[in-house]
C-alpha cells in the first residue's frame, strides 16, 4: 500500500510474480491517452477509446486513430462491458499489487521451497477478492438490467465521494431517435419523441436545448437538469456563421466569446467534445467543472496559450496557417522591414554603413572599394575579382558592418594592402606585435595560420562539431611552405585579416574556414571533401 496508491503504472507488476498483469493492465489502457479507459466508447470500426480522446481525435481528422476509417462522433456507442472491466480491475488492483509485492519480498528474503505453494495461495486470494468485486458488480448489473432503470452499474469506487451523485442514469438500454437527431431514449419514449423531433426539425432545431432527451427529463427537476447535462450538442456549421453570430452562439451556451473566429471555432469544438464526453460518462460532472476544463484548455492550447510552440515553429509551416491574421498582427514589423529593404536597395553603400563617409573622408576617394566593402554582407561584389565562393558565412563579417570604427580600420588596411604599403595594425595592450609583410597576398595565409595556431577564441573552437585538428593541417603546411612565422597575431589584427581574407581567399581557404567556424549550424558544417555533392556528383 505504498507507492501503488500514488501513481499506478503497469510497470508495477514487472518485478512481481504477477508480471503478466502488466500486459493486462496495458490492455485496459486507452491507446490515445495511455491511461485507464475513461468512459470507453466504441467506434463504427469497433475500436475503443476514451470518450474525450476519440471525440477530440475525430474532430481533428475525422478518422479512427487505429485503422484510419472515416467515422463520426455521433456514431460512437458506449462500451459498457469494458467500462465495467476497467472499474473492476482498478478496484481490485491495490490489493492485488500488495499481495504480489509481499510475495516478491518474501521470495527475495528466503528462497524457500514453499514458494510455489504460496504463490498459488496468494493468487487464489486475489482471485477471490476480484470475485467478490465481481459478484457485487454483477448483482447491481442484474438489478439495472431487470429494472431497465437508472441504477448505476458501476458504483463501487466512489459512491461516497460524489455526494451530489444521483443514481438515475438514462443511458442503459436506450435506443436512438430514428430521425437521426442523435438523441437516445427508452423504447416507450420513441413515439412521442418522433413527433416532437419532427416539429423540432421544422423549427430549425431552435428548441433543442430545452427538449427532454428521455422520459427522465420530464420527471426530473429543472435544477437537476442544470447540474447534470443531458443533451449532447453538435458542432455548428461554422462556415455559415459570421463572427458576430458565432460569438452570440458561444455566449448563449455560456462559454467565452472573445477572440478571432478561428479561435471561437476551436473553443466551440473543444466545448462540444468536453460536453458530449461528459454526457457519455456514468459520473457526469457539473458544468462548472467543464468550464474549468475549458479554461485550462484555453491556457494551454487556446487563446491564452503561450505562443512559443504554435507561434513560429509550427504555425508558419501549417497548411491552415492564418496568413491574413499573421500579416495584420505583424503589419508594423513587416512595413518597417520593407522600408529598410527599399532604402538599402536604392542606396546600398550608405544604407548598410551610414556613418562611414563622416568618419573616413579619404574613403570617398575610392567609391568602388568602399561600396564593395560596405555592402559585402548583403550583396555580392559587383565585379568579383576572386573565384566565386557561394555563401560566405555572413555572420563573420556582420559585426564589423555594424561597427563604424572597425569598418573604417578594415577599409584603411585593405586600401593600404592594395597600394602595397606597410600597415601597422591597431593593437590592444598586452599583445605582441605581429610580424608584418609587405605583400598583400600573404595576408590570407597568415590569417589561416593564426586560426590554426593561436590559442583560439573560445567562441570559435568550443563548439562540439569542430573538425579534428588534423583537418587544419593543410592550412598549416601551406603556411610553413611560404615561410611565414606562425606567430600569433593580436586579436584585433587577426580579425582584421580575417575580414581581409574574405576578399582574397581561394576556395580552399573558404572551405577550411567554414569547417572551423560552425557557429550557427553545429552539426552541419560542410564536410571538406564532398563539397561538390550536388554540383558534379551525378556523373
Amino acid at each position: 500500500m505504498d507507492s501503488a496508491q500514488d501513481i499506478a503504472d503497469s510497470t508495477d507488476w514487472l518485478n512481481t510474480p504477477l508480471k503478466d498483469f502488466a500486459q493486462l493492465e496495458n490492455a485496459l489502457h486507452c491507446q490515445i491517452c495511455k491511461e485507464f479507459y475513461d468512459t470507453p466508447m466504441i467506434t463504427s470500426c469497433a475500436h475503443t477509446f476514451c470518450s474525450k480522446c476519440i471525440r477530440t481525435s475525430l474532430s481533428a481528422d475525422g478518422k479512427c486513430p487505429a485503422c484510419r476509417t472515416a467515422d463520426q462522433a455521433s456514431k460512437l456507442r458506449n462500451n459498457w462491458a469494458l467500462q465495467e472491466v476497467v472499474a473492476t480491475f482498478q478496484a481490485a488492483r491495490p490489493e492485488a499489487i500488495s499481495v504480489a509485492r509481499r510475495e516478491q519480498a518474501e521470495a527475495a528474503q528466503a528462497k524457500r521451497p514453499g514458494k510455489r505453494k504460496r504463490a498459488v495461495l496468494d493468487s487464489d486470494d486475489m482471485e477471490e477478492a476480484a470475485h467478490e468485486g465481481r459478484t457485487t458488480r454483477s448483482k447491481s448489473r442484474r438489478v439495472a438490467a431487470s429494472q431497465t432503470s437508472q441504477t448505476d452499474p458501476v458504483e463501487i469506487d466512489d459512491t461516497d465521494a460524489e455526494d451530489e451523485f444521483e443514481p438515475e442514469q438514462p443511458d442503459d438500454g436506450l435506443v436512438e431517435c430514428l430521425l437521426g437527431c442523435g438523441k437516445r431514449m427508452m423504447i416507450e419514449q420513441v413515439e412521442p419523441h418522433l413527433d416532437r423531433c419532427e416539429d423540432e426539425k421544422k423549427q430549425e432545431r431552435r428548441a433543442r436545448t430545452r427538449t427532454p432527451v428521455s422520459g427522465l427529463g420530464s420527471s426530473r427537476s429543472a435544477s437537476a437538469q442544470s447540474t447534470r447535462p443531458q443533451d449532447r450538442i453538435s458542432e455548428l456549421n461554422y462556415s455559415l456563421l459570421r463572427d458576430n453570430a458565432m460569438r452570440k452562439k458561444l455566449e448563449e451556451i455560456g462559454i467565452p466569446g472573445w477572440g478571432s473566429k478561428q479561435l471561437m471555432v476551436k473553443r466551440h469544438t473543444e466545448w462540444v467534445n468536453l460536453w458530449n464526453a461528459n454526457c457519455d460518462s456514468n459520473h457526469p460532472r457539473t458544468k462548472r467543472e467543464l468550464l474549468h476544463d475549458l479554461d485550462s484548455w484555453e491556457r494551454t492550447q487556446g487563446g491564452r496559450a503561450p505562443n512559443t510552440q504554435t507561434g513560429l515553429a509550427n504555425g508558419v509551416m501549417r497548411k491552415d496557417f492564418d496568413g491574413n491574421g499573421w500579416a495584420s498582427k505583424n503589419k508594423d514589423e513587416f512595413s518597417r522591414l520593407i522600408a529598410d529593404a527599399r532604402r538599402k536597395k536604392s542606396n546600398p553603400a550608405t544604407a548598410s554603413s551610414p556613418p562611414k563617409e563622416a568618419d573616413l573622408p579619404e574613403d570617398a576617394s575610392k567609391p568602388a572599394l568602399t561600396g564593395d566593402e560596405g555592402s559585402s554582407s548583403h550583396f555580392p561584389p559587383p565585379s568579383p575579382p576572386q573565384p566565386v565562393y557561394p555563401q560566405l558565412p555572413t555572420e563573420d563579417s556582420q559585426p564589423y558592418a555594424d561597427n563604424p570604427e572597425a569598418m573604417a580600420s578594415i577599409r584603411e588596411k585593405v586600401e593600404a594592402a592594395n597600394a602595397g604599403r606597410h600597415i601597422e595594425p591597431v593593437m590592444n595592450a598586452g599583445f605582441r606585435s605581429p610580424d608584418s609583410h609587405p605583400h598583400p597576398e600573404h595576408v590570407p595565409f597568415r590569417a589561416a595560420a593564426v586560426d590554426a595556431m593561436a590559442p583560439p577564441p573560445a567562441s570559435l573552437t568550443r563548439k562540439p562539431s569542430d573538425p579534428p585538428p588534423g583537418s587544419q593541417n593543410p592550412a598549416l603546411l601551406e603556411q610553413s611552405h611560404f615561410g611565414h612565422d606562425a606567430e600569433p597575431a593580436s586579436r584585433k589584427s587577426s580579425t582584421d585579416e580575417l575580414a581581409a581574407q574574405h576578399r582574397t581567399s581561394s576556395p580552399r581557404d573558404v572551405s577550411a574556414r567554414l569547417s572551423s567556424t560552425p557557429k550557427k549550424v553545429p552539426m552541419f558544417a560542410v564536410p571538406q571533401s564532398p563539397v561538390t555533392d550536388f554540383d558534379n556528383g551525378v556523373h
Partner: protein
Amino acid sequence: MSSTPSTTQGTKSAGSSARSAANGNVIKRLQSELMAMMTSPTPGLSAFPSGSDITKWNATITGPTDTPYAGLTFKLTVSFPSNYPYAPPDVMFKTPIYHPNVDMAGRICLDILKKGGDGSEGAWSAVLNTGSVLLSIQSLLGEPNNASPLNGEAALLWDRDQAEYKKKVVARHQEPAEMDVDAA
C-alpha cells in the same frame, strides 16, 4: 480509488493543479510513453527528454543492418506540440544524413509525421507514439520513398549505384559523440 482523490484534490487545490495542468494531458501521456520506452526498449532506438522540458526529447537511431546506414548512429530531436497526441511531433535529424527523404537541414518527409484531416494526405494518428515514429524513421533509412524525394540526387543514386550511395552516406555522416557531451 483513482477518481476519488483527484476530485477532492481538484476542489481543494484548484489553483495549483490548474497551473500544472498546462498541457497536463500532454505531460501525462509523455510520461507514460517514456516509461514504456524505458521498461521495454527497442534495440537500435532510444529517446529521452533533453532537459527539464518534457516536450523536447533527444533520440538516437542506429542504422539498420543490410542498409548503407548499417553501424551508423543518428541523433534526432523530437518536440511535441501542445495538443499532442492529436497532432504529430516535430522530428528532425541533428546528425547530417544523406537520404532521399531528408533535407540538408534534417527535416524528414514521412507521412506519419504530417497531420491528417480533410484533403491532406498526412497519416499521423493519435495511437502512434514516439517509439513507433522512431521505428518508422529507422525503417525509412532502409526503404526510402524515392517517389517524393527531398534530396533528388540521393533518390537517383539509390537506384543507380549503391556503392557510391554508401560512400556518400559515410562521407556525410558525423559521429554524434560530441552531441552526447553537449547533452550531458
